[in-house]
């Protein structure tokens, strides 16, 4: 029986060294390391995330959620006055397996009270400079808005484009259009982003994409800019590989609760299970969470970039039939 690790000893050493550099980076900046529970009574309502549950031994027909990100309890720590915090932890999402996807993976997540999201992008870049070999950061990271990257690569405005125009755009770039795409514009924008834009991002530097349509806000604050509803959210890419997602954190409890409820309604429309909402998190927003920015970075993927691994299985210890 094949019992040996899927990562080589060299990669395991790289992993340990990377973690050391990350911890040193945050220690130097007085950002406190925390650990929040992996098992939670509430999960992620985002319909694009598949929650993995564990059967509770306490009561029949009840289950707990393995966290898909430590976001909500970390924000409860912020509201409790923790100051800047970071966490390195395994998280669980039941997506398909792939070169860049496993149902269990490692996140580095951190929160900065009083930082704006552009300031946090600066800090993400500082972290990359501190923890990655210099050849990855010798060219300054590119920063481009979601709207500008669509205009540049596809010559369409994602805030204005219709579903019919998205389909035309696929035809123009000879992209096979999936069946059952429906009329939800965000799904079309996701298709264009994944299939046509991401593959054309620079290969020799990190790229930040920021200011997403408000309909893709997730847990980010939104604002109006010249009539466009913008989510103050950013993503970090290396080539076409998405590495991190950051927000100017939404602090309005009512809007946050409405978004969770809307996501659960969305789940019902798509015949997906609804997810228990974390009302303690809503309550902490009511009591007041400091204005903050936060970001979650996929550590396995960053290690893939660093080691040149072709598959995520090459950078984790064991992949036993999962």
């Amino acid at each position, binding site marked *: 029986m094949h019992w040996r690790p899927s990562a080589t000893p060299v990669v395991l050493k790289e992993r340990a060294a990377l973690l050391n550099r990350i911890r040193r980076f945050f220690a130097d900046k007085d950002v406190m390391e925390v650990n929040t529970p992996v098992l939670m009574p509430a999960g992620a309502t985002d319909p694009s995330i598949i929650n993995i549950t564990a059967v509770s031994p306490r009561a029949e027909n009840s289950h707990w959620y393995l966290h898909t990100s430590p976001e909500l309890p970390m924000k409860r720590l912020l509201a409790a006055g923790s100051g800047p915090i970071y966490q390195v932890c395994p998280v669980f999402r039941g*997506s*398909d397996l792939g070169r860049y996807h496993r149902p269990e993976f490692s996140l580095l997540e951190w929160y900065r009270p009083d930082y704006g999201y552009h300031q946090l992008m600066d800090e993400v870049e500082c972290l990359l400079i501190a923890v990655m070999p210099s050849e990855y950061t010798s060219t300054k990271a590119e920063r481009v808005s979601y709207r500008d990257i669509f205009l540049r690569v596809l010559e369409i405005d994602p805030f204005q484009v219709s579903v019919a125009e998205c389909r035309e755009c696929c035809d123009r770039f000879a992209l096979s259009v*999936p069946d059952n*795409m429906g009329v939800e514009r965000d*799904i079309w924008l996701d*298709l264009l982003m994944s299939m046509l834009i991401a593959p054309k991002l620079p290969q020799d530097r990190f790229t930040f994409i920021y200011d997403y349509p408000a309909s893709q806000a997730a847990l980010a604050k939104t604002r109006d800019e010249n009539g466009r509803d913008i989510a103050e959210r950013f993503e970090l890419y290396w080539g*076409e590989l998405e590495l991190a997602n950051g927000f100017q954190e939404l602090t309005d409890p009512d809007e946050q609760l409405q978004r969770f409820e809307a996501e659960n309604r969305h789940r019902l429309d798509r015949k997906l299970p609804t997810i228990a909402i974390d009302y303690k998190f809503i309550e902490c927003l009511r009591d007041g969470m400091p204005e903050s920015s936060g970001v979650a970075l996929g550590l396995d993927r960053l290690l893939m970039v660093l080691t040149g691994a072709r598959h995520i299985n090459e950078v984790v210890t064991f992949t036993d039939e999962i």
Partner: protein
Amino acid sequence: MASYSTNEFKSGLKIMIDADPYTIVENEFVQPGKGQAFNRVRVRNLKTGRVIEKTYKSGESVEAADVVDIEMQYLYSDGEFWHFMHPDTFEQMGADAQVVGDAKLWLKEQDICQVVLWNDSPISVTPPNFVALKIVETDPGLRGNTAQGGTKPARLETDAVVNVPLFIDQGEVIKVDTRTGEYVSRVKD
């Protein structure tokens, strides 16, 4: 109707696309950031051999193609159909010229071939990698010229034409690589 969810996609899986059977050559799961995930797949049409790219929304189901690969023995051709027999059940099946395609140049009676069946009908035939075939027509052999390079065309019993070394004679049996259509060696009895 059997179907597969995109999370079962892997190379070799047989699926239906636009009423044709395809095999998945490569599957990539793509989800940059939050939002809808997709599967980008390269698929080969099992009837034509053409490879195309398709995109699926992750979580969708795709109809399975009832396709099996089996070994069958080639029996004979009646000019319209090439007849094969299942070595265990002795069941016989005919494949037309379109299905047999270029394989007909290498089909020798009694040889075991790979036959792809879709809904129990043959859709493609692959001959053995190496076949032994007799030369029915070629220029006379040049004696003593076994070391020199240089080739000449030779017509085989199946009507295939291959280039053979100058020293090979009509009536000889040669081994041919069916994947490249190239002469490999003489076959000595």
